């Protein structure tokens, strides 16, 4: 067992350096989580890496990579209504996939407790948008915690799990990218060593778990009642705290306050370190439901209050409404420019907002002059030896020579990089699994421009199947190229349903055949001439055609090979002893 695994499961308290994502695993173990599920997506895959680092025979919980985020959420839900504390984690846009089920959660008595961990991505570091999932807490009537550091992520996971178990309602823990990947020293507590109780405790009498038409109203009423009870609790929660690092002396006769949460709260402390002026900070650890009484007291104790938040105007709108209802006289200041609603709120950007609002306390700084030097860009690209690269090379040449007006549609994964130079293949991108549906739409009554959609193998299982059934059934005239590399490569080589690492392989050609696809060809992506010929025929085929361009992810292939060699060497040395 690795040192890391030994430390993460060690029952006794210890203190050490830990990444946010890894600290969450310790929090899961300390909380007694019994079932954890996910579908990989940045910024959260290292949570799963840490779980997988614990050898299965000593891992005190059941963990699985589910087919997609919706299934992952449902598996965690099923475990919770059976009495087991569960958690599901995925990236920001993963919640969109899971939302159909997530919207019923507040009406369900999750008797084991359940924490839904979200990895939001302000700054779009590795996502197709920077959606602000704080809205979803409101829309789904579920409480939300927002840590700003790895230590807070660890402590708030435990608090969220405890709350969820107490109120039998799932709780969101919303992380952001630089909480997930930050590292700091954390004091960990004790992991309980009692034997897990796997007794299946499901009982419809705990529910009802049957929200249909009129039966939703008692359930919805109960959800509101639970939220009201939590709202009362958060008024005194230590996770919502007032910080006054410079004291509370008025600035030019005005008492100034800031209301904030998550990483922006810490950016605020950075800014306050640079001035002497007293500005109070109300830092919210629980951002839904809001502590209304506490907010009003804070606002009323100040002449001006600035809402400091990242991305959408979530707190701004709600706090302004609250202030309006209570005839607050303090000025509520907020962001005024569209640009301020985008990207991460880093300390330098926050300083600009503060100096725009209170120039006396936070003197304006000259913008950093742009460098005169020309620095060549470096964009991510497909790795040397990558099969996608070979496939794109061949397809680009074929299309340029024979189908110059073809339309190519990309999906999510390493192959999304094909849209960049030099290939420029797959120029429409939305989300996981969109390519075949979008391609079908592009193909309608279109006899002049061939449509080629791309999809990776992990996405094929995750969200590709419904649109494949659709294209097969309606015989949409498009070609789907499945780029199969036998792994979920972009997020760090997690297993797929087709690579045998999780169970018996579910093979793509067999799935396509069962779905009634009439034209299916399969070729190694390195065989460029054969790939071109298959594609030529697929484009000529009247109706839906699929070409599988397969080649193992070479990054993974070479690493596995090195590992096998190292193990063999070790074994040989052992045998010679």
């Amino acid at each position, binding site marked *: 067992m690795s040192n890391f695994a030994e430390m993460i499961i060690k029952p006794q308290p210890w203190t050490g*350096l830990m*990444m946010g994502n890894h600290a969450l695993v310790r929090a899961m173990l300390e909380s007694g989580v019994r079932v954890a599920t996910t579908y990989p997506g*940045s*910024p959260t*895959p*290292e949570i799963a890496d840490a779980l997988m680092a614990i050898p299965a025979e000593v891992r005190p919980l059941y963990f699985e990579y589910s087919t997609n985020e919706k299934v992952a959420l449902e598996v965690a839900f099923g475990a919770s209504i059976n009495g087991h504390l569960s958690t599901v984690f995925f990236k920001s846009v993963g919640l969109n996939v899971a939302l159909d089920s997530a919207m019923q959660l507040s009406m369900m008595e999750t008797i084991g407790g359940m924490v839904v961990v979200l990895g939001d991505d302000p700054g779009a*570091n*590795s996502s197709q948008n920077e959606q602000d999932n704080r809205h979803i807490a409101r829309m789904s009537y579920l409480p939300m915690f927002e840590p700003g550091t790895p230590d807070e992520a660890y402590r708030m996971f435990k608090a969220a799990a405890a709350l969820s178990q107490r109120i039998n309602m799932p709780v969101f823990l919303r992380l952001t990218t*630089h909480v997930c*990947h*930050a*590292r*700091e*020293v954390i004091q960990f507590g004790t992991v309980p060593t009692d034997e897990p109780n796997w007794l299946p405790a499901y009982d419809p009498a705990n529910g009802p778990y049957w929200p249909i038409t009129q039966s939703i109203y008692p359930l919805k009423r109960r959800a509101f009642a639970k939220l009201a009870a939590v709202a009362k609790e958060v008024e005194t929660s230590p996770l919502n705290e007032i910080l006054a690092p410079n004291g509370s002396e008025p600035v030019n006769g005005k008492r100034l306050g800031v209301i904030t949460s998550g*990483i922006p709260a*810490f*950016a605020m*402390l*950075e800014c306050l*370190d640079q001035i002497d002026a007293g500005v109070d900070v109300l830092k919210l650890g629980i951002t839904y439901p809001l502590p209304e009484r506490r907010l009003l007291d804070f606002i009323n104790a100040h002449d001006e209050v600035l809402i400091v938040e990242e991305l959408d105007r979530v707190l701004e709108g709600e706090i302004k409404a609250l202030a309006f209802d209570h005839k607050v006289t303090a000025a509520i200041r907020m962001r005024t420019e569209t640009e301020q609603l985008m990207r991460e709120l*880093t*300390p*330098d950007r926050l300083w600009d907002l503060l100096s725009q609002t209170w120039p006396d306390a936070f003197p304006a700084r000259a913008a*950093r002059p742009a*460098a005169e*030097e*020309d*620095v*060549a*860009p*470096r*964009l*991510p*690209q*497909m*790795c040397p030896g990558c099969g996608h690269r070979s496939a794109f090379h061949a397809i680009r040449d074929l299309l340029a020579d024979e189908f110059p007006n073809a339309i190519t549609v990309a999906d999510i994964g*390493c192959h999304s*990089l094909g849209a*960049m*130079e*030099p290939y420029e293949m797959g120029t429409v991108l939305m989300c996981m699994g969109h390519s075949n549906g979008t391609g079908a739409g592009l193909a309608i009554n279109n006899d002049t421009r061939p449509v080629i959609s791309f999809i990776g193998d992990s996405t094929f299982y995750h969200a590709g199947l419904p649109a494949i059934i659709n294209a097969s059934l309606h015989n949409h005239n498009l070609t789907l190229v499945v780029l199969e590399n036998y792994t979920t490569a*972009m*997020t*760090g080589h997690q297993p797929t349903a087709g690579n045998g690492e999780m169970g018996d392989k579910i093979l793509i050609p067999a799935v396509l055949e069962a779905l009634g696809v009439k034209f299916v060809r399969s070729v190694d992506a390195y065989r460029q001439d054969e790939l071109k010929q298959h594609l030529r025929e697929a484009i000529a085929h009247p109706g839906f055609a699929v070409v599988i361009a397969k080649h193992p992810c070479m*990054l993974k292939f070479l690493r596995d090979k090195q590992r096998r060699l190292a193990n063999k060497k070790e074994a040989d040395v052992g045998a010679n002893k």
Partner: protein
Amino acid sequence: MANFNIYMCGVGGQGIGVLSEVMIQACLAAGHPVKGVDTHGLAQRGGIVSSHLRLGANVHTPRVTAGEADLVIALERLEAFRALVNVARTGGTVVFYDTEFQPIHVRMGKAEYPSLAELEQAAKKRQLRLERVSADALPDPRMQNTAVLGRLAGLNVIPGVTGAHLEQALTQVIKPAQLEANLAVFNAQAQPTAAGESN
């Protein structure tokens, strides 16, 4: 002590993760409160990898603000240039391993790869100390990060962090099988007169 900001960068696969792990362990051993953050995700695909490390009791967030790095450690010349221009503070230090990973735009003739002279000029303009590391005959190109750590050991540029702290951290982080070769590379660079070219 005032806060001290370290920014590390290179190209995916160069060993920024190991470099950053050694650095953070050495700084912890020297008694500094530390906060750090690494890039994950797209990095493996030939992109820029960076790691931020901030020392000091008054550090609240882990990322180094543009123009505020006291020390830049880069494992590649173009990335050293980028960080020198964008992240280093005036009067700071840039230590870099002088190897070349051409990005696609350079290969396609759409952008220029920087010369050493351009780095030197840009450093002079900003009153930066520029330390170029280059070692002939490394047993493995993956030890370029160790060579840079060795050079750092001789520079005493991070308050309170000695060569012994770095060497101890290296010993902790590197797998036993590769430790001896790495220590040799580290020590050769730690002594400025020993093998290994220096500017």
